[in-house]
């Protein structure tokens, strides 16, 4: 387990192996170390769930935008500069009082990078990939989420290049909030479906 490593000053073996492969590819003229830094900078700091949250908040407040996103989101995402690798075919699925949506990739780790960034550790874990299609409610309980019995769960398994993003229900008491304030209620987990939108602070 990666998190059971004893803390030492020496890098773990996989770290050394990655370094060795990088050195080899740099020496062969195939990889630019500055390009690696730029890729990491992009996904560590620039591209992340704040992008998806912005879209969800806009769908909450703007019915015309919401309808357009539901029917054909790609032209709008391009306009908003939210198009890119692993987000070429996006579909937004909305939670309702009747249905709760959850996203997984049981075969690998497919995830909408331009809108949510690189997936968290648990999304890529064997336990999540194995269990959420069979017992989504038990998995949601691992995240502290309990759904009413009457609400159906729809689990989306990303088996193609289509990427799904969950639009959580807009929380009660958020009627007077600005789009920017609303975006702050939309967590990464809410857009995967393992969480709900945050309640507004009273």
């Amino acid at each position, binding site marked *: 387990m*990666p998190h059971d490593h004893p803390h030492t000053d020496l890098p773990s073996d996989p770290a050394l192996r990655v370094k060795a492969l990088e050195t080899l590819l740099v020496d*062969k003229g195939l990889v630019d170390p500055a*390009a690696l830094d730029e890729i*990491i900078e992009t996904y560590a700091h620039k591209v992340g769930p704040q992008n998806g949250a912005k879209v969800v908040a806009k769908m909450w407040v703007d019915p015309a935008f919401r309808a357009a996103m539901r029917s054909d989101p790609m032209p709008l995402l391009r306009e908003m500069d939210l198009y890119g690798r692993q987000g070429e*075919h996006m579909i937004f699925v909305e939670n309702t009082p009747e249905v709760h949506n959850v996203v997984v990739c049981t075969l690998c780790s497919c995830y909408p990078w331009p809108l949510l960034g690189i997936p968290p*550790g648990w999304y890529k874990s064997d336990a999540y990939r194995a*269990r959420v299609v069979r017992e989504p409610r038990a998995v949601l309980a691992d995240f502290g989420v309990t759904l009413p019995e009457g609400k159906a*769960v729809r689990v*989306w398994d990303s088996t193609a290049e*289509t990427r799904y993003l969950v639009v959580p229900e807009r929380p009660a008491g958020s009627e007077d909030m600005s789009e920017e304030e609303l975006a702050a209620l939309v967590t990464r987990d809410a857009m995967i479906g393992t969480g709900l939108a945050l309640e507004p602070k009273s």
Partner: protein
Amino acid sequence: MSRVHDMGGRFGDGAVNASDDATFAQDWHARALALTLAAGALGQWNIDISRHARERLSPKDYTRFSYYEKWMGGLAELLVEAGIVTREELQSGKADGISPLADRKLLAEKVVAALAAGGPADRPSDIAPAFKRGDKVRLRARAGNTLVNGGHTRLPAYAAGAVGEVVIYHGTHILPDSSAHGLGEAPEPLYAVAVKATELWEHPENPNDEVILDLWQSYLEPA
């Protein structure tokens, strides 16, 4: 090929560790991701070939490797198979000269544009859609590749043989079963198919639940 990666519906994995939520838990994870993307930018393989390379890790390695170790294992294999590095170079860590592909190297100033360009998978196809929204379909009974024995496929075993209903038509997309093996993109109609939990599991949590999978037309027959 083992199907060790195909773990949907498996028992015995324990609780999901929701606190394991970092994007990059260790610095080398970020480096491994970046190295994979930079090597991919050389244009010597596609996403289906790279998925297949990770799935072909021995079941022992697939199970014991952490996530990004699998990526590095797959990448090393791809580099050798594409003739970009030799096994000797991998073992010694010493480059045997500059690669003829060096002029295709992804430069730092091109990174943002390259990531934003994406790699869409929809393609025109001569194959007409056989199903429409609302149609009942049966998924192929065995989750195997019909073109290449033991090859890559994107039909998860847990849903094989199940009956579902078409809920979205996605248009025509590259067929991974072909594309992963250098047999061409072979685009065909792709659908989202909803399968009831009661159809999939002996003891579903709730009879109203369902799983929706994206499935290519050749994975499906009328039901």
